């Protein structure tokens, strides 16, 4: 049986390694940092971890409805495609920095892309 993306990337350990790198990038990205700034950082970090686990094909229970509900307050504040793209960029840059092969990064990007309409409430 072939390995899943999550297994190929290195599982939970890979997510642990990626979460701080990713979160630092997001916080220093002026296009999107406002969406992340006001909230409790530890709670945010936990959310980033949940996001990365999902993006890397790991175990998660998110439904499209969860994605809509979880981001509705951000959509109300103006969350749009440009912000979504910025997050995708930061994700790719994080995985590159951690020497994840390009084809696996593409797989992760595809998983994220599949949530776009739910995240943006369309």
């Amino acid at each position, binding site marked *: 049986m072939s390995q899943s993306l999550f297994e190929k990337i290195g599982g939970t350990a890979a997510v642990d390694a990626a*979460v*701080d790198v990713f*979160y*630092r990038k997001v*916080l*220093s990205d002026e296009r999107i940092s406002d969406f992340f700034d006001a909230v*409790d*950082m*530890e*709670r945010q*970090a*936990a959310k980033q971890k949940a996001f990365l686990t999902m993006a890397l094909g790991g175990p998660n229970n998110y439904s499209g409805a969860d994605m809509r*509900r979880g981001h509705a*307050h951000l959509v109300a504040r103006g969350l749009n495609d440009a912000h979504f793209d910025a997050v995708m960029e930061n994700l790719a840059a994080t995985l590159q920095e951690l020497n994840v092969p390009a084809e696996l990064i593409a797989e992760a990007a595809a998983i994220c892309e599949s949530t776009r309409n739910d995240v943006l409430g369309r």
Partner: protein
Amino acid sequence: MYEINYSGRAVACTENETVLECLLRNGIEHPHSCRNGSCQTCMVQAVAGSVPQQASAPLKPSLREQGYFLPCICHPQDNLDIRPVAIMERLQVAVTGIKSLGRNLVQVKLQRPEGFAYRPGQFINLFRDDNISRCYSLASHPHHEDELVLHVRRLPHGRVSGWIHDELSQGDKIEVSGPLGDSFYVVDDQQQPLMLIGTGTGLAPLYGIIRDALHHGHTGPIHLYHGARDAADLYLGEELQRLQAEYGHFHYVPCVSGQASGDRYAAGRALDVALQRHPQLKGWRVFLCGNPEMVKLARKRAFMAGAAMQDIYADAFTVSA
């Protein structure tokens, strides 16, 4: 929308509220205090339903396993049956000494109750009466002091701090509960550099943590930046300088952000001075304590300077009169 069953009474928790907010909105007088997951006053036990990991994260593993969680930081993702916990046992202790440490600042010594084990850096709840309590950090170290030592700043209109300053005296009996909090030294990487930044009486737990690290033979450098607006609000300077003379790898930098004369103090806010001197914190363990705004900003800046999220220990002093 999830249903919360509180000792037989069912209430509906709306999208954006915590379990605690839901209980209070429905007129259930559940005890609470800080509302941010620090003081654990509102802790409850889940008898059915799954609790989001976040809501029990601040608790000891032994409590988590029993289904305890903090409703003030719980956004439910399941229907929950919960019940209030028998309030943490209150212990009666004698006040064994009160002395001034500086302007509007006293040191309170309390008899340590039999079997009361704590980690330096943790805090206790101190009760003025049945309804009014406040959290105070422990500045003591069980190896160095038999008693529990607190640093209490008089707050404007402080109902507990004013009472401590004006009315409490040696020999009085008061009630405390605890210990609480997870900001303390863990014996792990003994070579790891430690950065401690505190404002005002945020020094109290840091003083305990520093001495605990030294007690456990920590060999990495230990840097303390203690800040206040006025030099008159810095304290324990002599003790900390003595500690610095005794341990070459402990460095104490008092900081004054207002007007200060002479070169005894670094000029600027403790956080700014610390990060100016140590712009890279990758691999460091960081302890932050005091003013909530400082702690919040410092957590972000320490993280952006490279400290791992799990290596940042923060204890924000939420102030209530």
